[in-house]
């Protein structure tokens, strides 16, 4: 599903690499917590897995595709099979909540009727069925987080990446979001969630990838 072999990621030459010597594998349909202090490399690892950057060295395989050697034109199709919940939501301000959620389906070329039905269903799933026509700016941080989650899962991705998806939520909302992510895992999606919260990890036990200064401290 996801395999990293001796991965190094440097943003600029001469600087310390953001990730170094990283090797691990994630099974299909697994749920993994990604932990580490700020600057440990969590976001860099997620960027790597969502194909926003390519490894400087090493071999990266995502959903059966060797990303380190793949041609650029092969990546959009692969990205469409990956759902992402960004830490800063990254909702498009000029689109309605419904259109934001429908975006991955539109990009995938789904038919208008099906696309709308799926996006509406997903918004109801995250408890935002009543805010479909609003703009993101009219929503609270927690609601925007849930819209971002709905957008990430609407296309039923094979790999779901979430960068601090509970950072703007109170405890009950955070638990609800993690429950939704686990539901996705039960449906067969491989889920990787970066978090700072030990409480969540305690309440939702799962394998942990622990990063420290760009290196893998532990996996298990």
């Amino acid at each position, binding site marked *: 599903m996801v395999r990293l072999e001796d991965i190094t990621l440097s943003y600029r030459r001469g600087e310390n690499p953001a990730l170094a010597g990283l090797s691990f594998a994630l099974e299909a349909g697994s749920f993994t917590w990604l932990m580490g202090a700020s600057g440990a490399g969590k976001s860099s690892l997620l960027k790597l897995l969502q*194909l926003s950057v390519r490894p400087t060295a090493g071999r990266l395989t995502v959903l059966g595709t060797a990303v380190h050697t793949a041609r650029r034109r092969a990546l959009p199709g692969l990205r469409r099979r990956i759902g992402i919940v960004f830490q800063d939501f990254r909702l498009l301000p000029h689109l309605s909540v419904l259109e934001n959620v429908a975006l*991955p389906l539109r*990009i995938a070329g789904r038919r208008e009727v099906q696309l709308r039905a799926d996006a509406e269903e997903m918004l109801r799933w995250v408890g935002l069925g009543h805010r479909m*026509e609003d703009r993101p700016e009219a929503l609270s941080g927690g609601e925007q987080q849930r819209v971002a989650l709905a957008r990430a899962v609407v296309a039923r991705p094979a790999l779901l990446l979430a960068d601090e998806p509970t950072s703007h939520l109170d405890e009950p909302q955070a638990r609800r979001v993690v429950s939704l992510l686990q539901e996705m895992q039960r449906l067969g999606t491989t889920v990787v969630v970066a978090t700072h919260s030990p409480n969540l990890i305690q309440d939702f036990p799962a394998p942990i990838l622990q990063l420290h200064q760009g290196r893998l401290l532990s996996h298990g």
Partner: protein
Amino acid sequence: MAKPARVRDPLGLRRAVSGWLLPALVAAMALLAAIALGGAEAAEALARRWEGGAAAAMLVQLQPGLDPVPAAEQVATLPGVAEAIAMDRERLSALLHPWLGDASGLPLPPMIEVRLTHVREADIVAQGIAEMLPGAQVEQHGVWVARLSALARSLQAMAWMTLALVGGLATAILAVATRAGIAARRDTITILHELGATDGTIARHFAKRVAWLAACGASIGVAEALPLLFALGRMASPLLGDGLEMPWLALLALIPAAALIAWFTALSAVRMWLKRLP
């Protein structure tokens, strides 16, 4: 609160690439292009008229006593001669009437009127006539007309060059407008890219928007040019005889041409920018 953007515009380009500036600039370019086209057409018509009319004709004055009819038949066999006609006394008198009044009583020399296939044959034909009819005087009023014709052709070439320059400027303006749009929607483009949109999909959204604005601008520019071209045609009508024939097809083609230039310029500018992303 403003109504959410229509789904056909996921990049929000109606706001990012909007306003009157781009259509106004394209309208100005289209206006210049239309005038250049009109100028090229007028220059072409002038050159054609001069080359095919006065320039392609010559008068041959024969030695007194020579019969112009067989001489004309001989001249007609020369290469480059379309027609050679012996001028009778009545036609000669009529030609001289504006200067001499009634010239029917005057001793008039035998004359031949020669029409050339093309003005460039004038020298060869004149040489042939000189060899064929010794002592004959050839009046080549086509020489100065040929110079005017060359001037018209030069004007025509300049008009085409202006058109090419306007095309180049329009391309540059459209590229700048597209880059401004990219800068305004940088984050949105990146998000769409990360969600799996292809370069082609993103670039086509830009291309559609910029092409639409360019087509609107070009329509305005062409419409503005029409009264100017009609006025130009009216001014040129004494020289052109029938007046300037409006190049309707070329003028109308300016609109899709502007849209096409805009489409390809935006497409390539966005694709080039997207290559920075992994």
